């Protein structure tokens, strides 16, 4: 086992872009190489691409070799594309980390990209039902908004969570998103504005939802030896945990307000890294909808089960509170280009630890960060840990 570090990051502006899938790849690629002037592209031996549905949104498959060509990279160790819907990007980071930690790779480029906005938005939206069980939940209209609306309804029913508490998540994330020049939405909002925005799927309004977004993000990971040559400010990878317990179809999901998969992944993550929730300074979590962040506070152990609403109401997830959650503005502000999101989260952690973020969303003195990425109807959860300090001991598992 070798230590692995994030050594560089690059990102495109997220949003509705007048840019093709290939344009986005080149934009993020150029940005990540510019961030790492000591790197010769010939040093990159591995490439993992996170992409969710290029086959449907831009009708292109076999995308990892295409990315290699677009960025002029010859890969001689590991090349692959990862697909686990909304968590495709973080899965790419995990496999690059594993490959370097085991000694198979030395320097890996990880790039996540999605082009979701096209002239055919009705087709793009339709592709979202493929994330669920297509022939069973698909014909019933099960895309993400009504599903997460039902999660919110059940959480309100079980724990008394309120519409106002949901809105407060957006208010916090919009506050930080307003200071993020790469975010799709850079405007602060009020609770009243969230509650009064257009109803999408009750109880979720437009501002309770993240958007369909075009964007790409890239990071370079390297072994400890190579990291020292490439940067003075490495960010160390502590490892990660994944779970799928709720399987795929609605019948397997049990109680919607209990994310047992995340509970398990968190338990595994804390056990492997010897961390506890109190030691986490920054948490970039998957706020695809406001309700998601509330449940994530609970399942990640930042507060007791059922008290996620109270946690935001007390301001505990603001910078200066118990843990700074989504100082990037989260998915709600950045938008959610599925394959790019997990990599954008890692990029944010890298920039935070370097101090390369605007005042107002900089988490001063932060040492430990996590990134949480979920996919589909919260069936899959993935947590990665990052630290400014080199880990003393690394563990894959038990």
């Amino acid at each position, binding site marked *: 086992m070798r230590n692995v570090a994030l050594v560089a990051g690059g990102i495109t502006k997220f949003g509705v872009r007048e840019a093709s899938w290939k344009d986005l790849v080149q934009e993020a690629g150029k940005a990540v190489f510019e961030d790492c002037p000591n790197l010769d592209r010939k040093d990159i031996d591995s490439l993992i691409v996170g992409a969710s549905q290029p086959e449907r949104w831009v009708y292109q498959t076999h995308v990892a070799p295409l990315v290699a060509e677009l960025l002029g990279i010859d890969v001689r160790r590991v090349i692959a594309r990862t697909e686990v819907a909304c968590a495709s990007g973080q899965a790419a980071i995990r496999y690059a980390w594993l490959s370097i930690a085991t000694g198979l790779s030395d320097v890996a480029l990880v790039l996540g990209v999605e082009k979701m906005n096209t002239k055919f938005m009705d087709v793009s939206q339709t592709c979202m039902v493929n994330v669920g069980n297509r022939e069973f939940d698909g014909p*019933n209209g099960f895309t993400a908004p009504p599903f997460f609306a039902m999660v919110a*309804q059940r959480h309100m029913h079980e724990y008394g969570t309120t519409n106002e508490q949901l809105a407060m998540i957006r208010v916090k994330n919009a506050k930080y998103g307003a200071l993020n020049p790469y975010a799709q939405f850079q405007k602060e909002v009020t609770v009243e504005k969230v509650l009064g925005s257009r109803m999408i*799927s009750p109880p979720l309004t437009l501002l309770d939802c993240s958007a369909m977004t075009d964007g790409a993000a890239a990071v370079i990971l390297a072994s400890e030896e190579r990291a020292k040559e490439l940067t003075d400010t490495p960010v160390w990878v502590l490892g990660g945990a994944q779970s799928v317990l709720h399987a795929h179809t609605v019948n397997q999901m049990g109680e919607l307000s209990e994310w047992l998969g995340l509970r398990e992944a968190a338990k595994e993550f804390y056990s492997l890294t010897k961390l506890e929730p109190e030691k986490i300074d920054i948490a970039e979590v998957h706020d695809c909808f406001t309700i998601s962040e509330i449940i994530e506070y609970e399942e990640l152990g930042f507060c007791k089960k059922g008290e996620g609403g109270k946690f935001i109401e007390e301001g505990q997830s603001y910078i200066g509170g118990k843990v700074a959650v989504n100082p990037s503005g989260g998915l709600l502000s950045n938008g959610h280009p599925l394959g790019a999101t997990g990599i954008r989260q890692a990029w944010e952690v890298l920039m935070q630890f370097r101090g390369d973020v605007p005042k107002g969303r900089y988490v001063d003195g932060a040492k430990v960060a996590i990134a949480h990425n979920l996919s589909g109807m919260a069936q899959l959860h993935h947590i990665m840990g990052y630290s400014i300090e080199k880990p003393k001991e690394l563990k894959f598992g038990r």
Partner: protein
Amino acid sequence: MRTIKLPDTIKLPTLLDPWDQQEPSGPDATGIYNFYRNLAEGDLTTTKCKDCGKMNFPPTMLCSNCLSNNLEWVKIPEEGELYAFSVMALGVPLIIDTYAPFVVAIARFGDYPENGVQISGIIFDSKYEELKIGDKVKWEVIEIQGPGEKKRYWYCFRKI
């Protein structure tokens, strides 16, 4: 300059149609064809494992609990309970967007999870405001017509 003229409409096969083709044979055949045959006869059914007793939904060829192929078709109890619901109004998948806005729901039938199912369904005949968690609902078989002469079957929920 040579020109290539494209047809005015480009034939789109079943790429965006979310329903199973429901064919008993041929390249679109499904091993759970009985599910659709039973729907055509008016029954919403699923597979239950005769070895471990687990009721699966969707029905499958193999019990995912114990990997047995020794399955039987059982009827899902007609009356169930509304577990959660919302509205699908915007960004509705093509084809079913004709019916939007509509209520999407999850209902539990039988003794879930031990001996019952939790399934998704559309409620066409009630408004969101008229529903509450715990309402009694029943499933109903619906006919999907088209494209052309094609006839398929599906189900929806109705508040009792």
